[in-house]
């Protein structure tokens, strides 16, 4: 687990261009939204935009470096090396997650620092709750990434293209830059219920509550409970489905399934 975490960190910081891209995109999107809110006099939303910049970095990492990674590993022949070793595939995924989280922290810090220096967003934080919320949000997000990684192994590139399709819509409905659930949401209640099944939605709702004392969709503790359940459930699904996939591979000679 530790070794895979280190590989992720070495890879993230081993390519200067990737560092620029992984920091640049969240910084720019956060700045753009912050400036928009500032210019229309919605100063109380600037904090949401800065928080969104932080979380979009983690969300991108979950999609492109967690969900897709095993599929890329399979194409390169690395997945077979994992399978023929005594190492646990779930432990490798957990290591990948830890490396991804630690490797994304500098981006999160830079986005926060720039947002803070330029806009001084009003914060009314309960820091203990923020820490717990942040940890549970990341746990559920990365556990979702583990589940997606097994899905992407099954459907290969066809499923990976879902990343492209879903990234922006999920970013929008999960409320990365504005509250998508609760009293401040522009969405109908039914849609709010549906999008609450995405851990990012509840995580953002909980983070806004704990950082800015913003009104939430449900109470902070309900958010945290749901995030904890999601983290455990996604982790269990990932472990089970990866084991099942390994057996399918041994039985059928392939783990891929064609959609068409």
């Amino acid at each position, binding site marked *: 687990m530790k*070794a895979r975490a280190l590989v992720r960190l070495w*890879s993230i910081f081993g390519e200067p261009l990737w560092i620029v891209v992984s920091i640049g995109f969240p910084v720019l999107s956060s700045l753009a939204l912050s400036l928009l809110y500032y210019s229309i006099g919605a100063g109380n939303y600037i904090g949401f935009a800065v928080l969104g910049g932080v979380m979009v970095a983690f969300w991108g990492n979950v999609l492109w470096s967690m969900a897709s990674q095993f599929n890329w590993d399979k194409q390169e*022949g690395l997945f077979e090396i994992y*399978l*023929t070793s*005594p190492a646990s595939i779930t432990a490798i995924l957990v290591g990948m997650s830890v490396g991804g989280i630690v490797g994304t922290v500098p981006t999160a810090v830079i986005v926060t620092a720039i947002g803070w220096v330029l806009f001084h967003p009003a914060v009314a934080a309960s820091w203990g709750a923020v820490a717990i919320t942040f940890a549970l949000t990341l746990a559920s997000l990365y556990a979702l990434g583990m589940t997606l990684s097994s899905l992407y192994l099954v459907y290969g590139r066809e499923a990976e293209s879902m990343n492209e399709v879903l990234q922006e819509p999920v970013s929008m409905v999960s409320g990365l830059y504005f509250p998508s659930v609760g009293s401040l949401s522009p969405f109908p209640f039914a849609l709010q219920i549906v999008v609450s099944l995405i851990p990012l939605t509840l995580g953002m709702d909980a983070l806004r509550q704990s950082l800015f004392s913003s009104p939430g969709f449900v109470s902070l503790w309900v958010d945290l409970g749901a995030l904890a359940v999601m983290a455990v459930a996604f982790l269990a699904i990932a472990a089970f489905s990866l084991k099942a996939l390994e057996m399918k*591979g*041994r039985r059928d000679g392939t783990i891929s399934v064609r959609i068409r």
Partner: protein
Amino acid sequence: MTRESTRSVEVSGLKREFKSKSGPVVALDGVSLDVGEGEIFGVLGPNGAGKTTMIRILSTLLLPTGGAAKVMGFDVEHEPEKVRRVINMASGAEKAGYDFISAKRNLWFFSQLYGMPSALAEKRITELSETLGLTKYLDRKFYALSTGYRQRATIARAFINDPKVVFLDEPTIGLDVMTARSIRDFLRSEASKNGRTIMLATHNMAEVEAICDRVAIIDKGKIIAAGTPEELKRRLGAPALVMEVSPPPKDLEMLRLVAGVKGFTSSADDERELSTIQVVVESDAASKGALDAMTASGHKVVASWRKEATLEEVFVALVGSGFKEREEEVGS
């Protein structure tokens, strides 16, 4: 049957079928063999013969549909976790490394999949790199390594965990002669000095002749001959006949009619308007018969000579055609 007292690999009646749209495809059809400790065992055959399927079953990536196989006494079907602790594998086709980290860090990472203490892993990386001539390139990022050095790193990875048995699938494919030779020297030394068992799937005859203690020739999922390379070649009894013929014949059916001709392969040289035909014969009389048949068909035999039999000719003698022709038959 094995020359060694301890068996590392035991395969008995191994079968594997794959489903396909046109019905079941038999990749392995009742293969049995034993490989002894410290032996380099070659599995030789054309593409599609079943070599890779066998390696994948033995390395726990695939389940057999019949028969049984054990590696170091552990059943590959029911005890894959135990098998995985004592084996490693590599393929010449794999990339097997993360591009943006160094070769050394890649090797260290792969050692950790086997739970090796870091200090031991570092020592092993140093030893393997020195033996494989990789030391100068250890700190280079994986993407910056040439194909040859990347393959050396892949071979180092396959030995990183001090495995008892190593499965290699075409380990020198696409490599230059010097790199391929240095990898073969390394494999030879790992087997003889460290008692490691190496099972090598390949269609490279020269590789098998150079390093394998024993070889099984496999065709259409069945072992058609097994023994030391020398034993197999001796079975032919007579050397092969090579003839250069002009103009290149459209077909070689006339040779099939000659008594004592076991098989043949040919290659055309369009520039010289010549065909080089290798004929596997049972006797000198069959050689003369083949030359006469060629002349009688209106072709000029520009030159002819006898040469020592190779493993390809053993294969030709057994199935009547060469690897290339067999691959075309299987593919069609």
